[in-house]
């Protein structure tokens, strides 16, 4: 995710973040407190402040954190007064929890901490199992521990109802102190270290985290119940350890390492989704016995450590079966600490210069990376008052200036005693530090006698406190930073640096020293100081192997000769020289070709030929995918325009044939031939995606480029590829049905699950990982093939791959007999999928987690065992990640399940019309953003709707909303999976019952018509919807086998359908367009008038297309494709359905 950030604490205890997209360190929004340590995770950061208390910082988001409190009111029937509050002595409390065992009066339910507020008062939940009770919420039973029903019966002796109240977490973008209301006996002593991780262990509950802490007494604590909906957790649990711990590190998955006072490391074993706390410890000895381990940091499958001599070590042989690894490897560099962040990327703080170093070249195949690279980004606060060249220079060569403060809570703050001595946050920092220079560093070392006293290297450093006159910081009022006394230990530098620097820049050595001295005289160093860091955490910093970071470059303003200084630290992607080369090449081409196009080519044509192997859907016997050889010939014509021919070499009846197709100026070269369906696996010789190249050449020959029109139809394939098609003016004309296969779809870069557009250029998408993306307007296609290269950004997506373990019940052993299915299979059970052999969906995906872990609940199988169950299975899940690029920018921080934008209503006044965008968060909150526009498609705030009354309970699992546009702006229709549809006009929400025995999963609303889709693939039309009565009257069944529906502003109906009869077989995921939709006949023709694309599609949005057909003859033509037939209701199961193509292209 592009909006991630690196967290760090400077020597003053101030917390800063450095965005992966940014160039400057930004001070944390809540900067009141000073911190010792921070440990970041996505959307939140935990830290230990200098009062040794634990704080959590939850980033602000549009999606509120809200929790529901419940209490049950119980009553018993009394022959005299009917149901009353008097219960039998053996009965439960009158107010209780759901089990009835706990007394729970309404006024006794308190907020867990001052960071929560009540959203509303208690109210009665009127719904039971998704159906309204209409009786004050009462549910009835014979006796208390029993099954309750909605209706009162003759034998209903007791009844109960549920009261609900919501509380909301308020302390966003602020450090919230973790309350310590535990038993004073058990109260943890002051904390010394803390680590957050475990987010890969399981997804339930959402945003679950493992928070581990080490106290000053060396005890290890685990924070219970930390998750996104409960950011503070509930209580600290003490974990037994075989020794006194000093520092702890928890990886995203199952790694947890602890360092002990004695210098060994403890490794936690047995961490898994069922037991995130793990079960036992094992001990790992330090690399060398004389220098114990001082610090460890772990990732998914790496462990880095620092020993007491500041050396950096990498642990070899770590994997999910062996969390201890096998041996230590010494790495280059001396660091005070290292931190492993997302993707096992590593950051460290240099021992001497206190700069943050990024480990470059860390990839899945080379986890130890290549080199340390200093992050030279400056702080925003520095930038504001110091833009002089001296500061820039100092960033260019950070190694040249090495300072250590005499006093600070840097890496050596493992020394417990010194930390404990420290006063609280109200300590007057600068004033106190003023008297500290005389205090020898040794006195700061702990007196605990555990070997953690003075390091030899440190003494050496602190010893020669020689101060270069020119560098003497001016204690004047220039800046507060200058008030801290510094010891310049530049003397140590010559031993190491000259060999490096002098060799690298022989002619600039003079310059460097120049930069040190005379410039230092011009300006006190305090002002332009490069930040000195104490702690860094990369737990929220998503860096991929190829991510372009701007952290290593110096801002412009340097003279060219100075720029050469930074030559070695300029990434190729952002460098000025690179830009210039591109610019010059463009100019050269213009200069040399612009006026000379009429010249004859010396060589007749320039031709690129690419050949490769693809698969071709063979539309004759045997009707299957056939390997074909293809050659794409791209040639440049005399006018400089390119055209292409695709040759397909294939075999029919053992006879070799070739078919060529070219498109010249948008005309169909293949004439009346059936459209070709090609599939391909990415291969080296065609670049990453051969189909992308084909698609690009089609676009080129059709002269389609740039931003699609606002009316474009967007769709997504089952692989998440995004396609867009320009609607022809008479696409929706009833008498002129364009067969769908003739629509031209071009691919846009990126990867999404849902895309929605509105006809005014606003396009939003949602990834598989619920990330919301907004279209940037880039017309580009792909990296490397881009026709337009602006507005293309990196995009990533995460999804889970599931495999199933199948077992048959064995009457003797109770388990273990093989089933008729594979032991390991896909969801259908028909394809074998073993843990080892299962690959990511394609080459573009890579595994995130190290191995499959037991996944979520077992699909249609139930989660409990009954007498009749003889087979069982469980699901294993493994996450994989895709990184691509496309014209999309993340809307952060926002995790959405669905989104809908009010489409342009035909004839609406475009000016001043503010567009409303509605969304459902992944947790079910309804969100609305007003004022989106083409220029500003992602306005900054997306306020969640105010408390929406008693339906709230259902919305937690809402999956699909769309807008009921005939109702005035601000209305929303929505449904919840427990089978009801709710529609709101203004503030009022209506409950709309779903079709009998069906659970609706999606609704789509056109100008006048409303369609809904249930979980069994039935498409329903809402009858009787009028502007004055938007609820409508009843549902009418339209079709089955529908996967997704999109109703446009002209009431046009497009669906993704399953099991559409192709010429010879059934295909899944076909784009179908309902024919015969007329103002008088909003449902379209009886049956399904559909014209389909071949399968492979997953989502379509026609909500942007308000291009009304020119009025022609209003004669209706019967739909050619299906007529009265409708979609055939084939037996369920996937046998016989062709394998979904790995990718599809339509030319």
């Amino acid at each position, binding site marked *: 995710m592009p909006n991630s950030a690196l967290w760090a604490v400077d020597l003053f205890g101030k917390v800063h973040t450095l965005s992966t997209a940014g160039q400057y360190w930004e001070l944390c929004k809540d900067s009141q407190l000073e911190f010792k340590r921070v440990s970041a995770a996505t959307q939140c950061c935990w830290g230990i402040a200098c009062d040794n208390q634990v704080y959590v910082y939850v980033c602000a988001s549009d999606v509120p954190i809200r929790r529901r409190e419940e209490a049950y009111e119980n009553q018993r029937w009394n022959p005299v007064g009917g149901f009353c509050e008097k219960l039998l002595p053996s009965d439960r409390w009158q107010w209780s929890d759901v089990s009835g065992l706990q007394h729970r009066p309404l006024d006794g339910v308190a907020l867990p901490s001052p960071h929560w507020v009540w959203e509303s008062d208690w109210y009665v939940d009127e719904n039971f199992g998704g159906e309204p009770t209409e009786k004050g919420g009462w549910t009835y039973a014979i006796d208390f521990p029993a099954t309750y029903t909605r209706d009162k019966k003759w034998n209903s002796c007791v009844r109960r109802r549920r009261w609900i109240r919501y509380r909301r977490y308020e302390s966003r973008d602020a450090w919230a102190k973790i309350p310590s209301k535990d038993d004073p006996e058990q109260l943890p002593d002051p904390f010394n270290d803390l680590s957050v991780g475990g987010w890969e262990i399981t997804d339930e509950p959402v945003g679950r985290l493992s928070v581990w802490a080490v106290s000053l007494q060396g005890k290890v604590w685990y924070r219970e119940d930390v998750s996104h909906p409960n950011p503070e957790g509930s209580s600290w649990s003490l974990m037994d350890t075989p020794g006194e711990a000093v520092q702890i590190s928890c990886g995203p998955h199952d790694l947890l390492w602890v360092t002990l006072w004695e210098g060994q490391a403890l490794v936690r074993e047995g961490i898994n989704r069922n037991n995130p706390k793990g079960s036992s410890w094992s001990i790992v000895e330090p690399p060398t016995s004389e220098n114990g381990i001082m610090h460890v940091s772990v990732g998914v499958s790496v462990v880095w450590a620092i020993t007491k001599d500041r050396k950096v070590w990498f642990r070899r042989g770590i994997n999910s079966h062996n969390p201890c690894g096998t041996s230590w490897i010494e790495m280059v560099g001396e660091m005070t600490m290292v931190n492993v962040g997302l993707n096992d990327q590593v950051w460290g703080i240099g021992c001497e210069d206190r700069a943050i170093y990024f480990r470059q070249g860390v990839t899945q195949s080379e986890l130890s990376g290549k080199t340390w690279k200093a992050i030279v980004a400056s702080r925003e606060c520095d930038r504001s008052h110091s833009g002089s060249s001296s500061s820039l220079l100092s960033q260019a060569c950070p190694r040249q200036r090495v300072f250590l403060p005499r006093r600070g809570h840097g890496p050596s703050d493992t020394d417990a005693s010194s930390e404990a001595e420290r006063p609280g946050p109200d300590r007057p920092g600068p004033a106190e530090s003023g008297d500290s220079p005389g205090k020898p560093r040794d006195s700061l070392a702990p007196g605990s006698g555990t070997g953690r006293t003075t390091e030899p290297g440190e003494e050496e450093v602190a010893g020669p406190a020689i101060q270069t006159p020119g560098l003497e910081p001016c204690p004047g009022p220039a800046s507060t930073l200058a008030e801290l006394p510094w010891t310049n230990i530049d003397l140590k530098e010559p031993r190491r640096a000259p060999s490096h620097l002098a060799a690298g820049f*022989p002619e600039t050595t003079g310059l460097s020293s120049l930069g040190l001295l005379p410039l230092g005289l011009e300006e006190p160093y305090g002002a332009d100081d490069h930040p000195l860091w104490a702690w860094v955490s990369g737990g929220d910093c998503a860096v991929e192997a190829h991510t372009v970071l701007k952290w290593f470059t110096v801002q412009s303003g340097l003279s060219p000769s100075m720029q*050469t200084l930074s030559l070695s630290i300029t990434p190729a992607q952002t*460098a000025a*020289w690179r830009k210039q*080369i591109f610019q*010059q090449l463009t100019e050269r*081409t213009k200069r040399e070709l612009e006026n*000379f196009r009429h*010249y004859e080519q*010396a060589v007749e044509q320039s031709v690129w030929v690419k050949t490769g192997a693809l698969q071709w859907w063979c539309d004759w016997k045997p009707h299957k995918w056939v390997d074909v050889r293809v050659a794409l010939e791209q040639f440049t014509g005399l006018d400089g325009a390119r055209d292409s021919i695709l040759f397909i070499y294939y075999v029919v009846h053992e006879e070799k044939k070739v078919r060529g197709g070219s498109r010249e100026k948008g005309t169909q070269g293949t004439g009346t031939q059936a459209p070709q369906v090609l599939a391909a696996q990415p291969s080296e010789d065609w670049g990453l995606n051969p189909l992308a190249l084909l698609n690009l050449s089609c676009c080129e020959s059709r002269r389609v480029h740039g931003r699609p029109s606002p009316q474009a139809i967007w769709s997504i394939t089952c692989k998440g590829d995004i396609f867009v098609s320009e609607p022809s003016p008479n696409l929706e004309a009833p008498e002129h049905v364009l067969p769908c296969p003739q629509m031209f779809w071009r691919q846009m870069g990126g990867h999404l699950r849902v895309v929605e557009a509105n006809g005014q250029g606003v396009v939003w998408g949602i990834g598989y990982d619920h990330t919301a993306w907004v279209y940037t307007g880039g017309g580009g296609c792909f990296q490397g093939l881009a026709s337009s290269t602006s507005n293309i950004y990196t995009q990533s997506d995460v999804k889970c791959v599931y495999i199933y373990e199948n077992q048959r019940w064995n009457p003797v052993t109770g388990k273990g007999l093989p089933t008729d299915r594979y032991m390991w299979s896909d969801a259908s059970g028909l394809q074998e999928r073993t843990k080892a052999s299962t690959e990511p969906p394609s080459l573009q995906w890579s595994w995130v987690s190290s191995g499959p872990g037991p996944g979520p609940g077992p699909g249609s199988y139930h989660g409990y065992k009954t007498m009749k169950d003889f087979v069982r299975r469980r699901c294993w899940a493994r996450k994989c990640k895709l990184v691509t690029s496309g014209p999309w920018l993340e809307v952060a921080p926002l995790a959405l399940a669905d989104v809908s934008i009010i489409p342009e209503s035909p004839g609406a006044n475009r000016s001043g019309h503010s567009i409303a965008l509605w969304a459902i968060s992944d947790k079910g909150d309804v969100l609305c953003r007003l004022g989106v526009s083409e220029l500003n498609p992602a306005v900054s705030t997306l306020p969640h709707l105010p408390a929406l009354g008693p339906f709230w309970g259902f919305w937690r699992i809402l999956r699909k909303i769309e807008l009921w546009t005939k109702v005035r702006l601000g209305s929303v229709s929505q449904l919840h999976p427990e089978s009801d549809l709710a529609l709101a006009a203004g503030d009022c929400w209506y409950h709309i019952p779903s079709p009998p025995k069906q659970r609706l999963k999606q609704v789509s609303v056109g100008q006048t018509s409303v369609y809904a889709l249930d979980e069994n693939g039935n498409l329903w039309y809402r009858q009787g919807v009028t502007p004055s009565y938007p609820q409508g009257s009843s549902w009418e069944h339209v079709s089955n086998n529908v996967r997704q529906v999109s109703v446009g502003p002209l009431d046009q109906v497009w669906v993704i359908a399953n099991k559409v009869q192709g010429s010879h077989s059934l295909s899944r995921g076909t784009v179908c367009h309902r024919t015969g939709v007329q103002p008088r006949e909003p449902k379209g023709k009886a049956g399904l008038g559909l014209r389909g694309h071949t399968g492979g599609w997953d989502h379509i949005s026609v909500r942007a297309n308000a291009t009304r057909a020119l009025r022609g003859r209003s004669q209706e033509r019967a739909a050619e494709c299906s007529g009265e037939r409708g979609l055939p209701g084939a037996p369920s199961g996937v046998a016989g359905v062709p394998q979904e193509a790995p990718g599809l292209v339509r030319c």
Partner: protein
Amino acid sequence: MTDDKDVLRDVWFGRIPTCFTLYQDEITEREAEPYYLLLPRVSYLTLVTDKVKKHFQKVMRQEDISEIWFEYEGTPLKWHYPIGLLFDLLASSSALPWNITVHFKSFPEKDLLHCPSKDAIEAHFMSCVKEADALKHKSQVINEMQKKDHKQLWMGLQNDGEKKNQVMIHGIEPMLETPLQWLSEHLSYPDNFLHISIIPQPTD
């Protein structure tokens, strides 16, 4: 984000508009019209001038025709250098199209290699590729070059004593901090050499 591979496209599709005129002293039967052509930058003169040859041979007598050679402002053009390199080196500052004079007589033996057939070009090209390959993969040259050498090389390119030089590759002037490795990967000619033209600038 532009991809580096786009550079290759520009490199391969670079064309130089050229005007071929017959040398005034060549004997012709009737007046020879100039011939205009777009020459691929990455190709070789004798490989792409079949048309030029035919065009001028039409107006000449058979006995006056011997091996064709080209010259620009008095300098014979070495066919074994890529066209783009020749242009950058000799004519980058002059106006387009590039005026090349065609000769059929008095072959400058001292300056040019003979080019008897296309096979000769191919042989030469292959030997270039092999040479480049040997240099690259024995890795001695580049590996032994330290960063300072790269830099000195660049600095040396820029300043040749008192004189100022213009450094040109494929008709463009990359900034001096461009990494050589990148240049070599992206701006090499098909013979696998990175041909850099260093053009002394007239001092004012």
